[in-house]
């Protein structure tokens, strides 16, 4: 199988702190790859480097065969990204947000018409497509964000905690769609998640902690290795039971407020 993501000795430092510390892994074409880890472990930093939003301090990463630091435009053309933090234009309608996304990814008019309808129906926002996004609830915005990320059927889809704060019904629905898309279009999926039941969907996972990869393999292999029954136990076994304090930045505070709102 072809490697679509290759990471070698990748390091990202913020001052003295190594958010990502000399990691190595690879993802094969057509895989669902889970990148797991506690808060502040380096998941988002890794995704940001792989999607060209951050430049690595040292090491190398290739996505779709292109170097993420030197061939940014080629990488950008091969990927899609569902962000962890809000990134919608709240002053526009849902449909306008999708329209701009479609244009940025050079989708034809017909394809945009067909897909936007398909996506908005999936996340059950079709009837409210003409409303300004700022009038949406947090959960609706999240659903729209997912719909937008899937709109252009990228070769590699990055999802940074895509179902954070969604109810089980919506999570199910989105997963059904993502897995179906994965099968139909052979899209490679790279996701980070906190929900260990979602890790079970993955062909392979890597667990990162304090910037280093502590384990990698299929969920089955990891369960055997740690003699655990569920991925949840595997996760706790490998990363410990202490609660992580990731330093409350402004975005973190907002995120925890949002989580509170959804619970």
């Amino acid at each position, binding site marked *: 199988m072809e490697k679509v993501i290759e990471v070698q000795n990748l390091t990202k430092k913020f001052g003295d702190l190594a958010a990502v510390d000399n990691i190595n892994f690879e993802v094969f074409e057509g895989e669902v790859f889970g990148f797991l880890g506690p808060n502040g472990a380096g998941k988002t930093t890794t995704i940001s480097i792989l*999607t*060209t*939003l951050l*430049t690595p301090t040292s090491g190398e990463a290739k996505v779709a065969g292109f170097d993420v630091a030197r061939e*940014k*435009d080629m990488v*950008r*053309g091969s*990927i899609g*990204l569902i*962000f962890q*933090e*809000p*990134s*919608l*234009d*709240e*002053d*526009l309608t849902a449909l*306008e947000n999708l329209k*701009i*996304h479609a*244009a*940025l*990814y*050079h989708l034809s008019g017909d394809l945009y018409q067909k897909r936007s309808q398909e996506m908005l129906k999936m996340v059950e926002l079709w009837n409210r497509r003409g409303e*300004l996004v700022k009038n949406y609830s947090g959960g609706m915005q999240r659903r729209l964000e997912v719909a*937008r990320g899937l709109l252009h059927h990228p070769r590699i889809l990055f999802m940074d905690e895509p179902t954070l704060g969604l109810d089980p019904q919506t999570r199910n629905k989105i997963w059904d769609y993502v897995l179906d898309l994965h099968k139909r279009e052979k899209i490679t999926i790279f996701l980070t998640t906190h929900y260990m039941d979602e890790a079970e969907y993955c062909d392979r996972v890597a667990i990162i902690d304090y910037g280093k990869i502590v384990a990698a393999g299929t969920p089955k292999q990891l369960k055997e290795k740690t003699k655990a029954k569920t991925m949840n136990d595997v996760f706790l076994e490998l990363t410990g039971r202490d609660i992580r304090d990731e330093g409350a930045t402004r975005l973190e505070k907002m995120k925890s407020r949002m989580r509170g709102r959804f619970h």
Partner: protein
Amino acid sequence: MQTLNDIYIIWYREVLRFWHNKPRIISSLAMPFLWLVMFGSGMRGTFQLFGAQEGFDFIQFLFPGVIGMTVLMTSLFSSISIVRDREFGFLREILVAPVSRASIALGKILGGATVAMLQGLLMLVLAPLVNVRLGVGMVLALPPAIFLVSFALASLGMVVASRLRSTEGFQMVMNLFMMPMFFLSGALFPLVNVPRWMEILSKVNPATYGVDLIRQVTFHFLAVPSAIAETFKITIFGVKLGVVEDLIIVSFFAFLFVLLGVWSFAKAEQ
């Protein structure tokens, strides 16, 4: 073609946002209205008191100045949209897309310039209130002139916005720039018989030539007596600037600032 499409879609979003925000469009008339009616009427008396020339009305001078003021403020401030996108996360959506940094910056500048032009042209609805007569010629000649000025100043705004991460910071820095630029632009009073330091500062101020361009175009169509129009003209190295000279100078600034703006954005967001 791809590049044009990318620039277009960034531009389209700016204009769409403007269109969605109709209350802002209406409220943007309030300040210029106050300047024109209250400040203008007051000053008109003063000018006459000190023996203004026959056939000249201060309102005719102030009206294009108020258009210039609106264009100056709107276009300089338009780049706040980059800072706001950065703050609210939408910029990342644009940045991971396969779109060049130059296209993003150009789309933003063109969008800001378009919005500033529309805001400036909106001032024309105030004309009947202050007895300024609009003609077809003026209404046709002003948009391109205003757009050029808006484009130059929106590009200058981009230079500032590229480096800033919070909208509060942007507003602070921008106000620091904008108010002196506004007062020294000749929008409110003629830049004749002013102290030497002020004359020098106003002549290095790019906005001066933009305001003057808008004013000279307006004067032309208002048929302001040439003797009066002459007295307001800016002189540089012994040359009195007319419409053509203003056009050349503003185009030069536009070219310089757009290069700087695109360069600094591309440098800040690689």
